[in-house]
């Protein structure tokens, strides 16, 4: 019934969809297996993409030729560039999505992808021969042959939903969980763990009083995610609203603490500390008398509203009573209660840099199965697993992104070396060279790499090259345009900017923090020059000029780090020989098998003095 596929992707969430699209677009014959084709690309939690550090990841996915950016652009109802008041590395795009449109756009995109087949059924096992995966087995007992398999099961593996004292198996509200795979993987020698996440209640927007809340509008001049011109920015947007909990709300919630699975020990899995439930927040930070609630519409037309900041697994009656005590929610009607969900994950230290498992060849893991949280984190892993599975079955070199190259590189490097104790989310602070990893230059960083590998299209590549050349042309023009101080100073004075002493170039003047590029271009009074370069080029040149010294310093630092990266270690090196390193370090090194000293130094449990000892040995 089935041909032998190059790549079989199990699961059709953010990771699965990106994986399937990438492998198929590169030319693999791909099967996307999902339990329910009507729930492809669900936004299980909040209806938003991007945000701090996450927005940069979406831009990187787009630059590499993934779909998340395009789909978000097509389904967004609000766009904001966060952290605009800070330096360019901090700017983070975030969009509020229409949940149903998002899923629909993804499905359309996948249906329009060549080489991509679908199969709706639960995958219950893997076919493994001689340490290599050969396909999957389904609940109907069908064996589907495949050269590589990517598991992106999300929260479905033995998913267990908690609402107060009630609990039931399920992968998502209203959907059943998946069984079989965890058990088989453990039998194959994998280590598994349990994690927990949660989601807030959804309410009827018609029952809310927005007068009692603060409005939060989208950007006046919204931008978008994709570097391609085929998507457009929003001409109208929907607002979100902000309200706050109060002591009364907290007291009500506390009445349910004895029935909370969080506090009575029924939930064993570890939840994310940066995305705590409301009960966790009032418990741990009892001194705070209010917490912020974001009221987010779920789409253009739907009345459903997402109550961001109110994630909870308290009994539904307690949730409901407490909700109604929030200003603006007095008459709220609840569509469905919040819940917590526990699911299986596999500590990602069992993976190599391509997300292939070390235990079973050609088997890849991506997304929450690796202990991450977030659509963006999942999507980028799916993309990388899809790319690398394709490259592997076609006997080509893998694509591994460096920490100084992409947030995606930081994420995978962190996961496979440090593992994670709680659901892993990206933060800009995780990247040591974040000034290099900006949302404005993801295409410059990554598109050429992806194009060479065969994923980024010719169109994308040409756009990037044009941007690169135009930017350096503009920078060069600004260096060439020099004016005498007599000419410049009256204009500078009019701008309240300090006078120059000598003949100066526009390039020099643009370095001033108080003048932006458009103001500087206007100093020329040369209309054709002022409008010669488009906004994106102007912004790129401005960033590269204004922050030149900082960027240069980051680049030098990243090259210094490369010294350790360049010290190769034989992955089969027997660390048992070195009695002098700590036993924890030895255990971790044996397990992770780093390929460079740099990688070894980032493994948690390997201390700087362990690294010094390794250095002594390696140089012997």
């Amino acid at each position, binding site marked *: 019934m089935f041909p032998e596929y190059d790549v079989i992707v199990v699961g059709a969430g953010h990771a699965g969809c990106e994986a399937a699209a990438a492998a198929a677009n590169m030319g693999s014959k791909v099967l996307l297996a999902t339990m329910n084709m009507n729930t492809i690309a669900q936004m299980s939690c909040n209806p938003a993409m991007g945000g701090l550090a996450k927005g940069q990841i979406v831009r990187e996915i787009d630059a590499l030729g993934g779909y998340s950016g395009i789909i978000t652009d097509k389904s967004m109802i609000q766009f904001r560039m966060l952290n605009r008041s800070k*330096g360019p590395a901090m700017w983070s795009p975030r969009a509020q999505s229409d949940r149903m449109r998002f899923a629909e756009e993804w499905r359309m995109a996948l249906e329009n992808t060549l080489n991509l087949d679908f199969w709706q059924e639960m995958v219950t096992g893997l076919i493994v021969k001689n340490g290599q995966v050969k396909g999957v087995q389904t609940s109907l007992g069908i064996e589907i042959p495949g050269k590589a398999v990517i598991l992106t099961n999300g929260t479905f593996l033995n998913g267990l939903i908690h609402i107060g004292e009630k609990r039931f198996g399920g992968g998502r509200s209203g959907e059943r969980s998946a069984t079989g795979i965890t058990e088989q993987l453990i039998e194959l020698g994998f280590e598994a763990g349990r994690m927990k996440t949660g989601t807030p209640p959804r309410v009827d927007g018609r029952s809310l009083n927005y007068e009692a809340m603060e409005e939060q509008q989208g950007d006046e001049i919204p931008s978008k995610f994709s570097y391609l011109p085929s998507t457009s920015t929003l001409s109208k947007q929907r607002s979100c609203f902000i309200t706050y909990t109060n002591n009364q709300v907290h007291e009500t919630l506390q009445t349910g603490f004895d029935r909370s699975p969080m506090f009575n020990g029924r939930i064993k899995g570890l939840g994310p500390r940066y995305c705590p439930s409301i009960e966790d927040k009032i418990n741990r930070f009892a001194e705070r008398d209010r917490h912020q609630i974001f009221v987010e519409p779920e789409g253009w037309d739907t009345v459903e509203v997402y109550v961001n900041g109110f994630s909870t697994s308290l009994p539904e009656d307690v949730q409901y009573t407490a909700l109604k005590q929030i200003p603006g929610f007095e008459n709220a009607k609840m569509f469905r209660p919040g819940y917590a969900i526990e699911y299986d994950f596999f500590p990602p230290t069992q993976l190599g840099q391509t997300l292939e498992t070390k235990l079973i060849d050609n088997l890849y893991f991506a997304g929450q199965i690796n202990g991450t949280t977030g659509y963006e984190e999942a999507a980028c892993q799916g993309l990388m697993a899809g790319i690398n599975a394709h490259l592997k079955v076609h006997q080509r070199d893998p694509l591994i992104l460096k920490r100084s190259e992409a947030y995606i590189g930081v994420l995978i490097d962190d996961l496979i070396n440090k593992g994670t104790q709680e659901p892993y989310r990206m933060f800009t602070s995780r990247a040591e060279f974040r000034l290099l990893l900006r949302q404005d230059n993801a295409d410059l960083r990554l598109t050429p790499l992806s194009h060479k590998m065969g994923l980024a299209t010719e169109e994308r590549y040409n756009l990037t090259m044009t941007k690169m050349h135009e930017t350096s042309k503009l920078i060069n023009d600004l260096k060439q345009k020099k004016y005498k101080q007599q000419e410049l100073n009256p204009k500078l004075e009019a701008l309240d900017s300090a006078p120059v002493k000598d003949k100066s170039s526009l390039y020099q003047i643009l370095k001033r923090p108080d003048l932006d590029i458009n103001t500087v271009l206007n100093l020329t009074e040369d209309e054709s020059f002022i409008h010669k370069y488009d906004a994106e080029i102007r912004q790129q040149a401005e960033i590269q000029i204004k922050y030149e010294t900082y960027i240069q310093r980051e680049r030098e630092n990243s090259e210094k780090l490369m010294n350790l990266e360049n010290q190769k270690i034989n992955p089969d090196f027997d660390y048992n020989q070195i009695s002098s390193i700590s036993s924890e370090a030895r255990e971790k090194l044996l397990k992770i098998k780093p390929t460079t000293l740099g990688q070894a130094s980032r493994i948690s449990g390997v201390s700087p003095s362990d690294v010094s000892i390794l250095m002594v040995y390696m140089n012997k």
Partner: protein
Amino acid sequence: MKFETIVALATPAGIGAIGVIRVSGPETFTIVNRVFKGKDISKAASHTIHFGTIRNGDHIIDEVLVSLFRAPNSFTREDVIEISCHGSNYIIQQLINLLLKEGCQLAKPGEFTQRAFVNGRFDLAQAEAVADLIAAENESMHDAAMSQMRGGFSLEIKQLREKLVHFASMIELELDFSEEDVEFASRDDLKSLIYELKKVIFKLTESFALGNAIKNGIPTVIAGKPNAGKSTLLNALLNEEKAIVSDIPGTTRDVIEDVINVDGIAFRFVDTAGIRTTEDHVEAIGVERTHARMKDASVILYMIDLKSDNLHDLDTQLEYLEELGVPYLLIGNKMDQAQPELKTKLEEHKGLLISASQKENLENLKEALKTLVSLDSFKTGNTVVTNLRHYESLRQTDLALDDVLTGIDNQVTNDFVAMDIRNALHHLGLITGEITTDDLLENIFSKFCIGK
């Protein structure tokens, strides 16, 4: 790959009552047991001492005591045996040759300490302290090295690190959680945190001058007019010192000729050319050099010839000393032949009257010298930085903090402030180990209510 078993003489070469030979490595007990006649030490407990003989075949080389240290409870964390033998060059040579023949390797300089470090007995700062301890020639130097080895320095750096991590997480909070409902630190708060950090670093880097003095001797310049008795004083001090250090006359006089140990504090004395105004070009250069030396000194012993100086010149010299701003001790030499008015004048200026040639009042001079340099801050257990590498790292940390302050003052956004902070963390990390972003996030999650 296993380490070799190494051997070396642990006490100084030369004749002494005893010599100690140290053996360290995996084969230590097997090798020594082969040549040791007495108790079967292969089964003996750690930290025990045994009497016996060391034999080369039937030939007894020496009667010895062997001290046993089993891994990891030893200096190197390997099996270690220390053999105490009679301190004759011949015996020591014979013993070491025998051990080499039995399979030991001769230890390279510093190799025992290196192994202690590699085997995780010390962190880097502590390992360096051991080197200092071995080289310690006086009490204060010994104390400084000792407190560093026990981790006093590392502790102080750890506290500094915690403060920096706190600062960095305040900055990161504003960057990574700007959408959250948390209060961010004001720029003034951040600045006062940096000032606090700089104060700690200042204290530590300042101590380096002291630490350096402890290691190398406090630079002490003896100055005065020609023939004031400078060299006589130096010799007088040196001779007394010799009498304390060793009974053997004239041993190492040439080598440490200028370092004198006064009650456990090392002074590095520098004799200078006499100061006088001169037309002679060559001599003028000499005087110029004396002035430069005086400026760089930690302490000046300024000598007045009470017999042949005059009041007018004395005033000029006192003025000059005051202008220099270097702590000085005014010494009136030749007290037995003093002109009364000079003597009175000197006493007015709290000068100390001595006779270098008669060795009179030298004890008072030493007391005054000790009071002047007052190493009390160190004696009370404050941390002293004695290592150049640590000093450099602290200085670089401090410079990075200056960049942070400049950044804050110039209103640059916090992502750039964060770069400088990371730089500071990096330099501090060079002393005791890197700080990771996990440290920062951990701090944020534990202190702030984060999360939508």
